């Protein structure tokens, strides 16, 4: 843990966004995670994405549960709203907050313990409800905060720091999300910001639950030779299925692609996500085919990355519930809660 605060000195040529803010204006406090933790890189990628999307800090809500990953909302956008929930219960809090104010931008940060063990049920139901949020799962295969036991995402045969091999099968959050009907499913790597930042930006702009599984090595307990979630292993076995470009609303589309290799998806707010297939046969909109393909890649011991599945036409939680466009918090109390006479009127239907 560093004892000094980050120097206030800045690079005079630091870029500014449409709000006149620099990336440094989107920082939080100094990280207290281990030096070299993948989560800090994810934080840096989030800062970059939020900066590039010109987000007003007070329009952002950061949510998390418990764990190393769940500490990270402290390390970005110090002026945003934030909530640390009970272990594994962040999705409920996010759903509740989103129900009350649909106008804010929600980002939940979780880990493999928080989402795949204690909070697995919560995670699944947030996907079912299609809560409109970016959900980042910082996945390192170990319980770092309790000294490095295997987590539910540890691969069979991968070893602990002490050399013991894991024998229980892992839960693959990408497979799980796809099979539960998630509308935005991606996997990336904390050590590859060129890939991660556009995915995070697309996730923020997705109308619904945008799930990003980020391999984020635990430098203290799971960055050794027997690990399948180390920097070296991930770099060696990463298989980029889709390259993602995020083109914000009103920006000129500059990149050109060979015929048939790229697909442009217009997001809810008008921005465009360009998906360039590395493998011709891959179709990021065919859920069944994606599941098959990922299974095939996994059996080769490779890790599929990229924005793997995207369905932009689906309805989010507010669509299912048929709520009004105005955020509920902004409705006058009388409208939101019309009183006992209105209740009595309603009950007449069933008596």
């Amino acid at each position, binding site marked *: *843990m*560093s*004892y*000094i*605060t*980050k*120097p*206030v*000195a*800045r*690079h*005079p*040529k*630091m870029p500014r966004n449409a709000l006149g803010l620099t990336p*440094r204006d989107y920082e939080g406090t100094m*990280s207290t995670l*281990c*030096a*070299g*933790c*993948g989560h*800090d*890189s994810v*934080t*840096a990628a989030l800062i970059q994405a939020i900066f590039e999307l010109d987000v007003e800090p007070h329009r952002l809500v950061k949510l998390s549960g418990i764990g190393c990953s769940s500490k990270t909302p402290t390390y970005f956008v110090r002026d945003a709203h934030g909530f640390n929930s009970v272990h594994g219960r962040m999705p409920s809090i996010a759903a509740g907050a989103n129900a009350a104010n649909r106008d804010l931008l929600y980002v939940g940060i979780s880990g493999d313990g928080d989402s795949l063990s204690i909070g697995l049920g919560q995670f699944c139901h947030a996907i079912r409800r299609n809560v409109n949020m970016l959900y980042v799962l910082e996945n390192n295969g170990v319980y770092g905060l309790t000294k490095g036991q295997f987590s539910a995402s540890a691969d069979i045969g991968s070893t602990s720091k002490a050399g013991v091999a894991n024998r229980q099968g892992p839960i693959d959050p990408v497979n799980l999300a796809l099979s539960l009907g998630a509308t935005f499913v991606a996997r990336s790597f*904390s*050590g590859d*910001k060129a890939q991660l930042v556009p995915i995070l930006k697309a996730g923020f702009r997705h109308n619904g639950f945008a799930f990003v599984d980020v391999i984020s*090595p635990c*430098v*203290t307990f799971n*960055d050794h030779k027997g690990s399948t979630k180390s*920097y*070296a292993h991930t*770099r060696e076995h990463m298989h980029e299925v889709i390259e993602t470009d995020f083109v914000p609303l009103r920006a000129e589309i500059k990149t050109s692609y060979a015929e048939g290799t790229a697909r442009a998806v217009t997001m809810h707010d008008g921005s465009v996500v360009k998906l360039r297939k590395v493998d011709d046969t891959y179709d990021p909109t065919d859920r069944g085919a994606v599941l098959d393909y990922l299974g095939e890649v996994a059996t080769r011991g490779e890790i599929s990355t990229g924005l793997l599945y995207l369905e932009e036409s689906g309805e989010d939680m507010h669509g299912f519930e048929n709520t009004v466009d105005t955020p509920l918090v902004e409705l006058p109390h009388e409208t939101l809660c019309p009183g006992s006479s209105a209740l009595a009127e309603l009950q007449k239907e069933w008596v």
Partner: protein
Amino acid sequence: MRPTNTRDPQYYHRVVDCQWACPAHTNVPEYIRLIADGRYTESYMLNRKSNVFPGILGRTCDRPCEPACRRVRVEDEPVAICRLKRVAADLRDDVRDLLPTAPAVKNGKRVALIGAGPASLTVANDLMPLGYEVVIYEALSKPGGLMRTNIPSFRLPVNVLEEEMDYILDMGVEVHYNHRVESLKAMLDQDEFDAVFIGTGAPKGKELNIPGRQEADANIHIGIEWLEAIHFGHIDSIGERVLVIGVGNTAMDCCRSSKRLGGTDIKVMARKDRPYFKASPWELEDAEDEQIEILVNHSPQKFVVEDGKLAGMVFDIVEWNENEKGRLVSTKLDEVFIPADDVVLAIGQDNAFPWIERDIGIEFGEWDMPVVDRATFMTTREGVFVGGDAAWGPENIIWAVEHGHQAAISIHNYCQGTPVSERPAYGMNLISTKMGIHEWRYSNDYDPVDRTEMRYVELEKRLSDMKIEAELGFDLKETAREVERCLNCDVQTDFTANLCIECDACVDVCPVLCLTITHNGEEDDLRQRLMAPAENLDQALYVSEDLPQTKRVMVKDEDLCVHCGLCAERCPTAAWDMVEFDLLTPYAGQESWTSPALAGSTTSP
């Protein structure tokens, strides 16, 4: 780009902007840390090693280090390096026991130094401990050269000057005062000396030959001669209305001296506008603080004499524009008469060598100056060396000191039969500053405070006496505040590529976007592909060996690094370390430092 060779001492030297800019390469960050620790004597001695006159320079240096200070680029105002040097000098204990001494048994070589200014004194300082018999010839009755005669006592008290000169002279230098060398030929013909060093400065003030000059002579003074006369007590008054012509540092000394000698209405007359002034900004400020008026774009036209006495001057009021060749040319707009009782000319200095015969093997070149080798300081006659202002015209004290060091190396080589072109090599030490996981033995916490202002003796009091030092110097509280502004640029970010796991932690945490991990390329291309474009071409790019996992490289733009050490604190494998760089500077009589390839590797393999 090829991987940077950080084992060449000059790479990290260049990162220490102040030390790199200092002609004598004083180890500024280290002496500031010593002051911060209250180790004033050690700080003084560290200074003395390279710049010989810390007390004098702490008051009068032209401070090439300060505009170079990284703080200027990161914020605005440099660390008050010069004023801190004075703190070390003011608060030091008696250093006499720590000074170099001359051996009782001499080496049999006699060296003559002509002129007792800073250049000659430095040569004496370096050669006396080696056993040379050093003989100085000085035209005036006291040593010091321009340090004594051109710098008024309100800037440099005489006791400060004399104490530091005595440190050298007390080693047993033989000095002949009131002895002007009239003929170099005669001296060389006597064959008394094994080497001769000429450190006679640039002693001739420039003339202003415009109408009325002769008629008004009684009230027109040549700046440097006039300052010398004040120093020796030959002049103690001046008229009420004084015009100082010229706007260099000598002009500032002249106008401020006038104010103390009874002048009440003092104007400094500049031909051009402020951006072209030669005086250091702080000297201009000091003069204006003392209610001296500076008039710009006034070009002297003539002296006006009434009843056989100076009445004033007529100036052309001009404006300056660039012509098609890009040179500034003036256009006269108007003219104006300004009354004056006295005029002081401070428009530059010339060298004068009437005492060097032109047929003794010393070649003279442009401007009637002797041809002097830039590295060895030797003339075209073997065994005759030149340094200080005498070499290439007026500079400042710190340059004279460095010339003295280099000339001493040459003289030593020459006397020992080694070619003068063989210069001993620089070396370096690199010492890790790591104390704990996130602790360093330097203050790495960036302190955003502004530069500490100097306090002065109250105006009326300071103007009443020529000998009252105007600046009060920093007190302990001000010192404690100012030392923390130093960024410790000598504590280097030292990288070991094969330890890097490319986790990006250093790149993410750097407050000033110094670091990038990317694919290698040509420098021009690489400079554009970094976290922030590296547009300051004066500052180096560090490029590592290929990184183990992706074969990319770590690139560091040295420009704005504040040496906070966060890259090293956030590095999980200690690929980054913060190592203190100590430049090992060779002086006369020293062996070369170890070759760069062998010089201290401190980081783990």
